[in-house]
């Protein structure tokens, strides 16, 4: 694209009162005459007005260009991780007495964090596959970042059972390995279902992520080979010799669609099964039928919030304003409001039923929650209600700063929710003689903090090894859609996939 062309389109879009910092692709631009065609609100910033080369340059910059700040950041994460690992190793050698747990509270902050991470993994792939299947055109640039989030939060979540069990060195007893004594895992146990569900989900979502990566890997590979970058070594292998032939694209599309459907079926089952770790017990406060859907909705709620937080951070750090736009945050925020409403409704249902029936063993737990964790409850419930109100305003949804803090608040609330599901129930069990209290120890704090650092670390490494923006999908979106003029209005036309 010539500089003259860029200027022209720049002026054109600026004149139309839309986002002036973008440039229209020539073939799209011909449809739009800013004099006669008013800008369509909400759609404008879905277009990518960059030439293919400029777009590639722009989106591959995070991959090929690294600043010193990045190394400092990763070093900082490394320190936090090392701290967590150190405490964990000490706990492994000395015993779980290093945690704050005691009878009858056998599960504490570790399990709460495990549920949190599994929950966080739910948005990426679900959002990605739902948006793929509903053919939402705005989804394109955010897919990769969301899917990567799923994979990495699952990897972090997968560590927690190891951290939590008493004899981590014997954890292979849970694997269905053939052995001389014919000992077999107990498939009646919800933990085994959990183990299987998370294994399947992790395999599925990593495959999903990888298949989606293929065309972009090829672009990055070509560039790495051309510039003799060290990344060419693994990119060559991982791109599987992708050349962009017709047959490759057709197989790729079929495969992504197929995986999207499969993942959409698996994902809700995973968090349902995680909820069954609690609901299948006969412990009052856990043993409720609502837990399955409640957990799934909670997972999607915290997940979408985390996707938004992540998008805002990525966009800010890597200057991806052209690609991850206000529109995307806006659309995701609308999704978030919907899920927030459903989640709040579920919470209301759960609370209301217990409060009305006032069964002593169940009400004791809620009463204790109110006494001991009232501040937490306010952050969780108040935060959720406040967020729903705030995000009803378009202005808030389109403000990056506001959305950043709102989504952080959502995830704080959701972490608290997990903590309140695990802890007060166990401190106030059926046997009132054993009622107790619990506070996590410094070991637990360090390990949990380390897990957050580990997640950020994995993500930071991923950004430097793989293209973070779904380039192929964005380009496809540009190709298959355009504006048509009908009288005085511009109408979006899109080829159905």
């Amino acid at each position: 694209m010539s500089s003259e062309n860029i200027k022209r389109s720049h002026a054109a879009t600026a004149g139309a009162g839309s986002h002036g910092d973008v440039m229209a692709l020539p073939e799209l631009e011909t449809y739009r005459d800013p004099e006669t065609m008013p800008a369509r609100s909400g759609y404008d910033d879905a277009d990518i007005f960059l030439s293919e080369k400029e777009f590639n340059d722009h989106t591959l910059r995070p991959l090929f260009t690294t600043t010193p700040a990045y190394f400092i950041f990763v070093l900082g994460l490394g320190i936090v991780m090392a701290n967590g690992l150190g405490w964990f190793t000490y706990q492994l050698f000395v015993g779980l007495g290093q945690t704050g747990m005691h009878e009858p509270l056998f599960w504490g902050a570790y399990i709460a964090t495990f549920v949190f991470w599994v929950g966080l993994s739910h948005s990426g792939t679900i959002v990605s596959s739902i948006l793929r299947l509903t053919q939402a055109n705005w989804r394109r640039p955010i897919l990769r970042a969301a899917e990567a989030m799923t994979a990495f939060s699952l990897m972090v979540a997968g560590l927690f059972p190891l951290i939590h069990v008493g004899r981590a060195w014997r954890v292979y007893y849970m694997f269905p390995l053939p052995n001389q004594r014919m000992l077999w895992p107990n498939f009646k146990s919800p933990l085994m279902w959990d183990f299987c569900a998370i294994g399947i989900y992790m395999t599925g979502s990593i495959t999903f992520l990888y298949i989606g990566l293929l065309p972009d890997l090829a672009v990055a590979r070509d560039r790495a080979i051309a510039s003799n970058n060290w990344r060419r070594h693994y990119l060559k292998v991982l791109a599987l010799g992708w050349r962009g032939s017709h047959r490759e694209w057709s197989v790729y599309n079929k495969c992504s669609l197929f995986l999207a459907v499969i993942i959409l079926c698996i994902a809700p089952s995973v968090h349902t099964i995680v909820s069954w770790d609690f609901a299948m017990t006969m412990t009052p406060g856990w043993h409720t039928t609502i837990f399955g859907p409640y957990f799934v909705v909670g997972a999607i709620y915290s997940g979408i919030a985390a996707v938004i937080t992540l998008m805002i951070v990525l966009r800010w750090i890597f200057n991806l304003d052209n690609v991850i736009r206000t529109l995307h945050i806006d659309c995701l925020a609308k999704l978030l409001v919907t899920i927030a409403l459903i989640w709040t409704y579920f919470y209301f249902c759960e609370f209301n039923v217990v409060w009305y029936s006032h069964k002593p063993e169940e009400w004791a737990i809620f009463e204790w929650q109110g006494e001991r964790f009232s501040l937490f409850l306010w952050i969780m419930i108040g935060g959720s209600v406040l967020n729903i109100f705030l995000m009803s305003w378009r202005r808030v949804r389109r403000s990056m700063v506001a959305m950043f803090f709102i989504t952080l608040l959502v995830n704080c609330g959701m972490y608290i929710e997990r903590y309140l599901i695990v802890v007060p129930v166990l401190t106030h069990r059926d046997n009132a003689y054993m009622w107790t209290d619990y506070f996590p120890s410094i070991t637990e704090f360090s390990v949990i903090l380390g897990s957050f650092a580990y997640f950020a670390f994995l993500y930071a490494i991923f950004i430097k090894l793989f293209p973070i923006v779904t380039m192929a999908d964005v380009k496809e979106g540009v190709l298959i859609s355009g504006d048509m003029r009908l009288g005085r209005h511009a109408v979006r036309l899109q080829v159905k996939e």
Partner: protein
Amino acid sequence: MKSFNYKKQNDYKWAMTIDLDRCNGCGACVVACQAENNIATVGEKQAELGRKMHWLRIERYIEGTYPDVKVRFLPMMCQHCDYAPCESVCPVWATYQNPEGLNVQVYNRCIGTRFCGNNCPYSVRYFNWYDSNFEGPESNQLNPDVSLREKGIMEKCTMCMQRIRRGKDTAKDEGRDVEDGEIQPACAQTCPTNAITFGNINDHESKVHELVHSGRMIRLFEDKGTHPSVMYLKGGVADVI
């Protein structure tokens, strides 16, 4: 379905009764249990944190206000439920129902997910938060019939499995059935008021069978449907636990 009368398949169905009207909360059973089963003494600090590992504990309930105070004692140990909630949730089969109606824990198989402890309504399962630590002369009084437990595994009352084994072996060697009262868990043996009775409930002549059918029998948390093998006896007074 298991019932009391499955003698055709299994010769023994162990059961225990604890007479709450006889129990005076002296705690001798707790000490006996601790000595018999090599239960770790966790020390003052850990006990304060709530990590004491008494397989059998005396729960003390105080009713009323001074001066009209009634203290009631409830010896609480693993109830050896027929429908044990702890068994089904263990991912590695470390705990299961043995053919004699006991709920047993396989130490070597346990990986310490602690799910069983979370699903036990009686809160009678204990976790080894640290390695057990028998120093100096303490190690001389360890029971050689009972294995020491490593850190990171669950343990609980076994109804003195080692004594049951020994009793059954002796009976087998002599070519007879185990006689009533021949096997005594440490707690029953020690109880000065004879509040604890242990026996084979499939044997209709046994003392425990008689006590269970005396009309004074209650089970703890009966609404949970766990059907425990440990049963409590109480007087006809309604306000007794």
